[in-house]
C-alpha cells in the first residue's frame, strides 16, 4: 500500500460521510453476517471486455520475496498476479516467474513497463520481463504509472502497446495510475484505447473516483484496484479490530471493480484477504467500519482547516495533528518526528502544552490538547 496515497487520501476522505453513506444502506438492507459467512466460494469477475475471468481478490506480489506466500495464494485459488519490471530491480518478476512456472495455464500475469523515450528500450523491458517471468506472453501489460490524461492516449504509447499485442507478447494492455486517477480514467473511458486500468482505490477516496471507475467499467475497461486497504490501523490499537477485511470488502462491493490486488507479504495476510472472497459486506463489517470511523472521529484530523488561525499564539495545529496521525495511526515514529521537525513544532509542542486551556475546538471532536500532550510525551 502506498504510504503517500494512504496518507493523502486518508486525511481527505476518512470522513464519516464516506463510511456513513456507504454503510447505512447496507445496514438497512438487512445483510447478515451469518449469510455472508455461508458463501466461501471463490468469486470470479470479468476483467472488462477482455473475456478473462479473474478472482475478485488477487495478489499484488510487489513486495513479496517469499515463494511460500505466492504458492499459498495460488493454492487458495487466486488466479491473477500483479508485478512490474521495476519491482526489486527486476527480481520480483524472477520470483513470480519461478513460483508460477508449470502453472502458467492456470494463472493470469499482469506486469508493467515504464515507458521510456525510445521504443527499443520499451521493447527490451518487455522482453526482459517475459524472460524473468519464464513465459512467452503476459496476460496484461500496463504502461506503468501514467500521470496526466494526455499520456493516456499518447500515440507512441498506444502504438507500442498495440505492437506488443500483435507480436503475441501481451494479450491485453492498459495503464496504471497512482495520482489524479479520476481524470485519467475518464480520459481512458472516453477514448476507448485501453482494456485494463490499474488504479488506487479504497474507502477513503472520493465519489469522483468512484464515478470515474464506473465510467471506465461501462466503457469496457477492466478496473483493477490497488492500495485497497489504505494503510489501516493496527488491530492491537483498536481493541482487536482489523479493518483490512472490511476495507477490502468495501472495494469489492463496487461491482465496477474487476479485481483487487492487495499487496501481501505473509501467508497470514493472503489468507486474510482471500477469505473475503465469496462473502458480502455484512452487518459485522458495517459495524467494523463504523467502529473504525468512530475511532477516527476525535482522533484523526481531516485537515479541514477549520482550526487555522484559532490559536492566539499562532501555533499551526493542523501540522500537530498530522504528526499525531503518523505516530498514533501509522505507528511511524520517524515520520511523526520528521513532520514535527519540518514544521519547527518540537519547541511549540512544549509551549503548547503549558497553556492552561486550549482554545481550539474541533468540529470533529479531536482533542487537540490531548494529541499535543501525546506528542510531547513521546518526543520530549
Amino acid at each position: 500500500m502506498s504510504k503517500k496515497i494512504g496518507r493523502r487520501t486518508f486525511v481527505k476522505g476518512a470522513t464519516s460521510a464516506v463510511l456513513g453513506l456507504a454503510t447505512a444502506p447496507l445496514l438497512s438492507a438487512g445483510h447478515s453476517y451469518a449469510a455472508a459467512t455461508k458463501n466461501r466460494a471463490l468469486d470470479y469477475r470479468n476483467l472488462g471486455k477482455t473475456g478473462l475471468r479473474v478472482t475478485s481478490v488477487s495478489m499484488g506480489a510487489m513486495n513479496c520475496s517469499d515463494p511460500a506466500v505466492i504458492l499459498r495464494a495460488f493454492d487458495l485459488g487466486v488466479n491473477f498476479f500483479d508485478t512490474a519490471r521495476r519491482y526489486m530491480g527486476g527480481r520480483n518478476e524472477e520470483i513470480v516467474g519461478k513460483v508460477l512456472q508449470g502453472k502458467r495455464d492456470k494463472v493470469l500475469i499482469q506486469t508493467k513497463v515504464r515507458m521510456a523515450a525510445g521504443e527499443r528500450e520499451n521493447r527490451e523491458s518487455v522482453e526482459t520481463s517475459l524472460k524473468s517471468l519464464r513465459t512467452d506472453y503476459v496476460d496484461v501489460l500496463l504502461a506503468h504509472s501514467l500521470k496526466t490524461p494526455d499520456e493516456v492516449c499518447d500515440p507512441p504509447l498506444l502504438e507500442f502497446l498495440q505492437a506488443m499485442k500483435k507480436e503475441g507478447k501481451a494479450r491485453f494492455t492498459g495503464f496504471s495510475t497512482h495520482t489524479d486517477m479520476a481524470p485519467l480514467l475518464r480520459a481512458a473511458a472516453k477514448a476507448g484505447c485501453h482494456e485494463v486500468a490499474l488504479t488506487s482505490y479504497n474507502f477513503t477516496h472520493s465519489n469522483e473516483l468512484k464515478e470515474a471507475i464506473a465510467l471506465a467499467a461501462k466503457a469496457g475497461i477492466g478496473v483493477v484496484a490497488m492500495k485497497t486497504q489504505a494503510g489501516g490501523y493496527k488491530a492491537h490499537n483498536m481493541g482487536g479490530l482489523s479493518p483490512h477485511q472490511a476495507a477490502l470488502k468495501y472495494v469489492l462491493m463496487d461491482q465496477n471493480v474487476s479485481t483487487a490486488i492487495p499487496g501481501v507479504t505473509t501467508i497470514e495476510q493472503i489468507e486474510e484477504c482471500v477469505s473475503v472472497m465469496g462473502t458480502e459486506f455484512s452487518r459485522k463489517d458495517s459495524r467494523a467500519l463504523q467502529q473504525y470511523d468512530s475511532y477516527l472521529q476525535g482522533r484523526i484530523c481531516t485537515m479541514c482547516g477549520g482550526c487555522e488561525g484559532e490559536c492566539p499564539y499562532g501555533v499551526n495545529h493542523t501540522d500537530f495533528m498530522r504528526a499525531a496521525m503518523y505516530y498514533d495511526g501509522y505507528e511511524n515514529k520517524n515520520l511523526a518526528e520528521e513532520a514535527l521537525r519540518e514544521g519547527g513544532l518540537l519547541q511549540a509542542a512544549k509551549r503548547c502544552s503549558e497553556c492552561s486551556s486550549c482554545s481550539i475546538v474541533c468540529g470533529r471532536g479531536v482533542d487537540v490538547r490531548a494529541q499535543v500532550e501525546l506528542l510531547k510525551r513521546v518526543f520530549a
Partner: protein
Amino acid sequence: MRRRNWMVLIYLFVCFLVPRHVFTQTSNMEPLVPKETPDGWIARGAPQTFTKETLFEHINGQADLFLQYGFEGSIFAVYGNNKSSQEKIDLDIYDMGAVVQAFGVFSRFRQDDRPGGIGLDSYLDDRYAFFYKGKYFVALQATESSSDGIKQIARTVESRIVDSSPPPKEIGYFPKRGLKPGSIEYYPQGLMGRQFLKRGFKATYVKPDKTEAAAEGPDSNLFIAVFPNPEEAESAFRSFKEVLIKKGSAHAPLSPQTGFEPARGEDAYQGKLIIAHKGPYLIGAAGFEKEKDAESLLAELSASIK
C-alpha cells in the same frame, strides 16, 4: 501572562533566528553525488531529492518496500556521456537510516551473486549496480550496456560515503558450508512469510541433489528471527510450535547433541522444518531434504551465536 509573553518571544526566536538545520537532521546527500567522473560521465541538471512523502512520485509502488525498510530520504541524478547522447545512467542514493536496513533493501534487489567489490556488498552487471555502505543503499541503472560507466559512478559515490558501520553481525552467523553466494536476505517483517516471526535474516543453501525434482521443490533455508529479548524469542518459538501442532505436522522432538532443544514439523510450502531458540533469536532450518543436513547446519548456526 508575563510568562506567556516570554514564551512567545522564545518561540519567535526559535522559529526565526535559530538556523533551520539545528532542528533538521535529514542528512544532505548532495555531496555524495559526483558532478562528473574521469571517463566523461556528467550529471545532467541538478539532482532531485525525495522524502517519505514524495518517494512515491519517483518510484511509484516500489516506494512501499523502501518505507518498510525505514527509508529516510533519497537523491536522484542522471548522468550522460559525451561520447553518446543516447546513453544515460540513473543514480539513486537512499538513506535507509541504519546499516541493517540498507543491507535489507540491497538483499531484496540483488538477483544472484555478482559482487562488484563496491561498498559492504554489491551486485554488478552491465546494466545495473546495487551496493550498500553504512546506512546508504545505492542503485544505478544504465540505458545501454555500460558496466564501466556504472562501475565508475558507483566507485565515486562509494568513496564519498564516510559511514564506516560494519555489516549486520547476523550475516556472519550463517554457516558458509553450502551457502548459496549472495543469498542472505534481511526482512523487516514477515520473515519466512510468517507474521509472528517479524524481522530477521534468511539464507539459501545449495541442494546437494541437483535433479529437476529437487530444483522444483522448496528452497533449503536457514533463518534467524531477531527479537528484542530472549523471552520474546521463546514466546515466538512456542507460537511456531503450536502452528505445527495445529496443522498436525509436528514431529516427535529430537534428542539433539547440539545443546538446544528444537521442535520439528512439516509445512506444505517450506517442507521440513526444525526450529529452536537461543538468546534473542529464533533460528530454524526449512526445506532440507535430509534432516541430518538441516540439524548439523542449524547446530553450526547456533554455535556461532555468541
